[in-house]
């Protein structure tokens, strides 16, 4: 019995791990009485796996049996892998016991497709429903919605889960058809639409009464695989920006393709997952969401792919030397955010700090500005202007920065770069 549950956990956690989302933020759920669990608005990472990824949720599949045959997935039906299935009680039990020990923030439940989409969804919904209603569990729940699931089940899932997600995986309809012939684009887009509608209605009801029943209060997210198909970064990022603006998604995750089924000739042969490209996409996504960049300032027809050697913000700055140097004592917040080496936190400190007196490069450094980078793009009174980007050739600066990075970087080290 014990051995069996260890084995099941191994199989079904291993099968679920390729979903990169781990966020547990975006809901604030207070404990209504003497029951178990809260959800904190910012989300807590409880551990970090040996791959450096945050472990916040018990990320697990109900089963890895699947009737579909998606080329990029370990669980596809034509693969000869160990299969297992949890009962809903087993998952409920694991979630609660892990939660009580402060191992996790909550549950992330996904599943392979059994029989059909609705049959699978019903079983998943039972798990989250039991957690909420029978066990009065208030921790975080993220549930995947199965492509093709009916509106009614998606609705029910949304009343119990904090976040719902449908993974698009492949950014263009044509390539999706090619790699996942059992899925159709509409089957993915429809549940996203149901979720979007549910969230809209919930928000409206909330205006009328504070007590309106919750619906996926932490919103919805999706995942796009990068590097399994030939889409450009521009194609991927335009899809992402339309998901953010039209479908009001909370997060789009990018997952560097891991060649799990190398025998399938529809897939490219990669020696390692494209981790640097994935990292650049996240940086671009950040520029879009938090740095007030427009997507077409980051990628466009002239430059459809992100520069792998330098981050997209630096790349933007080097393409636009006419905007620099920026005077940190005068420029507005938006421009200060565009200085390489300045993040939102130091940008705030700059805006607040300069009210009390002129900023010098020494003060900037103390505020967390990376002067090694920023010095070429700013003036602050006493900085000499001899090596500003407008005076030095952008190509020269690019060379300088890539060499600095290379000197620091050992092979395989790309992820250790912090976001900027």
């Amino acid at each position, binding site marked *: 019995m*014990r051995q069996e*549950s*260890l084995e099941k*956990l*191994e199989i079904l*956690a*291993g099968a*679920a*791990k*390729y979903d990169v989302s781990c966020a547990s933020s975006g809901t604030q759920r*207070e*404990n209504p*009485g*003497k*029951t*178990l*669990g*809260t959800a*904190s608005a910012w989300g*807590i*990472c*409880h*551990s*970090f*796996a*040996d*791959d*450096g*990824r*945050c*472990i916040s949720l*018990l*990320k697990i599949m109900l089963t890895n049996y699947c009737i579909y045959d998606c080329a990029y997935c370990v669980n596809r039906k034509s693969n000869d892998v160990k299969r297992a299935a949890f009962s809903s009680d087993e998952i409920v039990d*694991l979630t609660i*016991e*892990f939660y*009580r*020990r*402060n*191992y996790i923030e909550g549950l992330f439940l996904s599943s392979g497709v059994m029989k059909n989409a609705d049959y699978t969804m019903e079983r998943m919904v039972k798990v989250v429903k039991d957690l909420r209603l029978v066990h009065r569990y208030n921790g975080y729940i993220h549930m995947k919605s199965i492509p093709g699931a009916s509106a009614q089940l998606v609705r029910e899932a949304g009343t119990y889960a904090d976040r719902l997600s449908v993974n698009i995986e492949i950014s263009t309809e044509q390539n999706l058809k090619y790699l996942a012939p059992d899925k159709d684009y509409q089957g993915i887009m429809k549940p996203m639409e149901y979720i979007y509608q549910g969230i809209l209605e919930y928000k409206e009801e909330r205006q009328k009464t504070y007590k309106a029943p919750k619906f996926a209060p932490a919103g919805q997210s999706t995942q796009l695989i990068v590097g399994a198909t030939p889409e450009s970064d521009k194609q991927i990022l335009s899809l992402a920006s339309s998901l953010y603006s039209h479908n009001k998604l909370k997060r789009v995750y990018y997952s560097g393709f*891991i060649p799990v089924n190398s025998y399938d000739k529809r897939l490219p042969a990669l020696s*390692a*997952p494209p*981790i640097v490209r994935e990292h650049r996409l996240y940086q671009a996504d950040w520029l879009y969401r938090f740095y007030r960049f427009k997507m077409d300032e980051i990628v466009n027809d002239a430059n459809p792919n992100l520069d792998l050697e330098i981050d997209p913000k630096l790349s933007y700055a080097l393409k636009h030397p006419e905007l620099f140097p920026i005077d940190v004592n005068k420029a507005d917040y938006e421009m200060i955010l565009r200085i390489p080496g300045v993040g939102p936190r130091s940008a705030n*400190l700059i805006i*607040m*700090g300069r*009210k*009390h*007196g002129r*900023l*010098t490069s020494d*003060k900037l450094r*103390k*505020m967390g500005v990376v002067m090694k980078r920023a010095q070429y793009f700013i003036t602050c009174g006493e900085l000499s202007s001899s090596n500003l980007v407008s005076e030095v050739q952008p190509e020269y600066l690019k060379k300088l920065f890539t060499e600095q990075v290379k000197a620091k970087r050992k092979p395989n*080290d790309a*992820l*250790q770069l912090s976001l900027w």
Partner: protein
Amino acid sequence: MVVLLYDKTFDGFLSVIFEIFKNKLKPERIEGFESQENILFAEKISIGTDPEKAARVWEALKKRLTERAYNAVYRIHLSGAADAEMILYRFMLKVFASPVNIEENFGDPDVLRIKKLDQQICKEAERIRQFVRFQKTADGIYYALMDPQFNVIPIVVNHFEARFADQQWIIYDSRRNYGFYYNCEQTMVINLSSDKVNPLNGKISSDILAEEELHFQELWKKYFKSTCIEERRNEKLQMQHMPKKYWKYLTEKQG
């Protein structure tokens, strides 16, 4: 040189600040009564705790600072950071000398120092929320040992009270040898001397563990391993987020 001595409580510290302003003292150190430092030629002045004086200083701080900043004063004092009192004293001199709120004047080294120190403290408090690992005992108490650099467990008690409202728990500070016990009604400060907890790895001896406890530890370790993507192995990144000094009490990092 003047050294001020007090009882190490927060009210005591605020009383010290009160006396500093009233009597125009210029201390070079502010320390607890029991301070071992014997400084030659130092004039030592003991200052008693006076709740009324403390309240007046606190109210004055509240008028001049935002909530975040006056709470930072409390957290920094509580943290036991080296030289915390003098850092706070220098900050408060500036707070009270200025007609406007100076908490965001980050060009000033004393103000920036407060901000940075508070960030460090809040970060460690977050690490407690992240890395507490409860072990369930036979009598149903969930126990966790922690070893934080700063005294931050008091800051996170209400997080754990709210989250684990229906279970009894203890979070114990091995470095300062005290902890908090929540009994589903209220939380109490406790001192425990028990040979049932191994201070090296935080483990509770198996004879007082709940029956299923070791099984769930095994499951958690299994999960920890299984969720890692081997193709992306990156121990440096792991250590950056989860510094090694926290590993000794982490169930998943124990053999």
